[in-house]
């Protein structure tokens, strides 16, 4: 029973990471209808900036955290303005290639600046464990991400800017007719997604250790999460994140031939399964176009 409970709790913790990255993916998907393959690498890059601040400049953890959130926010806006705004009307393949290009750029740039050796990254939470079941870092991650998701929910549901961003994503032409500056809403979405990704990077780095490739697997799980929840449903992506986190842990523990080695395969099976049998995910809307 203890093993089961401990697996659920640590599953929720990795689920919180997947949920935040999946939400970042969905935010950009809603604005431009493409999946940002570089979301994980952008998060990794942000985490390296935090590492530099903490280790090289002795900045306290939470101050570094805050600085990185701000830097990532404006970095995300810059990437959108410089890279994606000019190719806004380009065909889907161009977007795809640019996303992959961004992936490669952030990955090699991080390797070039910080090297490929694995680095440890501090956790803001004490190293103790909770009743021997799960580390306090894991528990702290769940609580912190939960709080953050609540903030995001409040922002999008109850503020005018949140409403404007949703309107711009749902119906850009009508949004312009209400005076919303749609281009800036898209850029703002990128900023928020990038900051949210940075959170996932900084929270997962103490667990998987910091190196330019640390987000690879996490990105796959987050894709699975966003697809499972429905790639046009923010709430679905969050729930999908937690479901994937818990399932991944339980499957790894209780299904012997999968174990730790084949866990990532499970994510791919999930992605394929969702695409085959429920392409809109659990909570996604079917997009119907009248002709």
């Amino acid at each position, binding site marked *: 029973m203890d093993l089961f409970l401990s697996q659920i709790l640590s599953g929720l913790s990795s689920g919180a990471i997947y949920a935040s990255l999946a939400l970042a993916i969905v935010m950009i998907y809603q604005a431009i209808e493409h999946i940002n393959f570089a979301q994980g690498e952008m998060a990794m890059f942000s985490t390296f900036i935090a590492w530099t601040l903490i280790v090289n400049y002795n900045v306290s953890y939470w101050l570094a955290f805050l600085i990185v959130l701000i830097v990532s926010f404006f970095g995300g806006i810059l990437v959108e303005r410089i890279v994606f705004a000019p190719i806004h009307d380009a065909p889907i393949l161009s977007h795809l290639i640019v996303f992959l290009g961004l992936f490669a750029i952030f990955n090699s740039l991080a390797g070039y600046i910080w090297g490929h050796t694995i680095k440890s990254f501090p956790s803001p939470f004490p190293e103790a464990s909770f009743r021997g079941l799960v580390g306090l870092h894991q528990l702290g991650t769940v609580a912190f991400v939960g709080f953050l998701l609540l903030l995001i929910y409040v922002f999008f549901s109850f503020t*005018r800017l949140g*409403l*404007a961003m*949703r*309107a711009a994503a*749902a*119906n850009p*032409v*009508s*949004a*312009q*007719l*209400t*005076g*919303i*500056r*749609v281009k800036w809403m898209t850029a703002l979405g990128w900023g928020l997604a990038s900051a949210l990704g940075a959170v996932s990077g900084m929270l997962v780095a103490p667990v998987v250790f910091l190196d330019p490739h640390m987000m690879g697997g996490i990105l796959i799980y987050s894709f699975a999460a966003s697809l499972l929840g429905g790639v046009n449903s923010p709430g679905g992506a969050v729930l999908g994140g937690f479901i994937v986190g818990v399932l991944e842990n339980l499957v790894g523990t209780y299904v012997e031939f999968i174990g730790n080695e084949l866990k990532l395969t499970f994510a791919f099976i999930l992605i394929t399964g969702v695409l085959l049998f429920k392409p809109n995910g659990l909570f996604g*809307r079917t997009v119907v176009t009248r002709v």
Partner: protein
Amino acid sequence: MNALLEVSRLEAFYGQSQVLHNINFSLMPGSITTILGANGAGKTTSLRALSGMVKTKGDIIFGGVSISGKATEEIVRFGIAHVPEGRGTFEGMSVMENLQLGAMTRKDKNGIKEDIERMFGYFPILKNRTYQQAGTLSGGEQQMLAVARALMLRPQLLLLDEPSFGLAPLLVSETLEILRRINQESKVCMLVVEQNATLALNLADYAYVLETGKVVISGTAEEIKNNESVRRSYLGY
């Protein structure tokens, strides 16, 4: 009296093809003007040109200021609201959210609240649907929501693209009745594009007739109603 909107030598393009040719017209403050014409004559494009939704050449002067070449979202800030073809409501959002979106460029919180109540006064059915998703409303209700959403801007000029489209006959006359009432109460100038010429001419003070992107006849609604060729081509008697 000076015109609220003056359009001169207006041309509009979709890519390479020119849709409007040398259009001139003006709108008097507080008046209702209608644009008549067959399908493809350029009625919708005329409205889209005013809102900066198509590429244009020529002058568009609104309240003494040139707005030609400006972006849609900036033109809205001059006080021009547009109910587009197909209504343009936010279907996944509630009636309340749609109304709030209409007032996106305004800062006066209390005024916005008052105006929402005013809209519920014009369109009582919307009040019962306050928190319902716009996509679940009937066609008529969505049309009312679209008009209400546009009015939330407190516009000086309201552009309406086929407000009667897809509505049951009873609703059509009801909608036009409300439009007339709103025009009289809040003095908002309206430019209405209508397929149904009889209705449009009954509602409007002035009318322009478009044919293949050119203004061919213009005058007061009365004059147009009595024009022989308009009667034969558009009114059918």
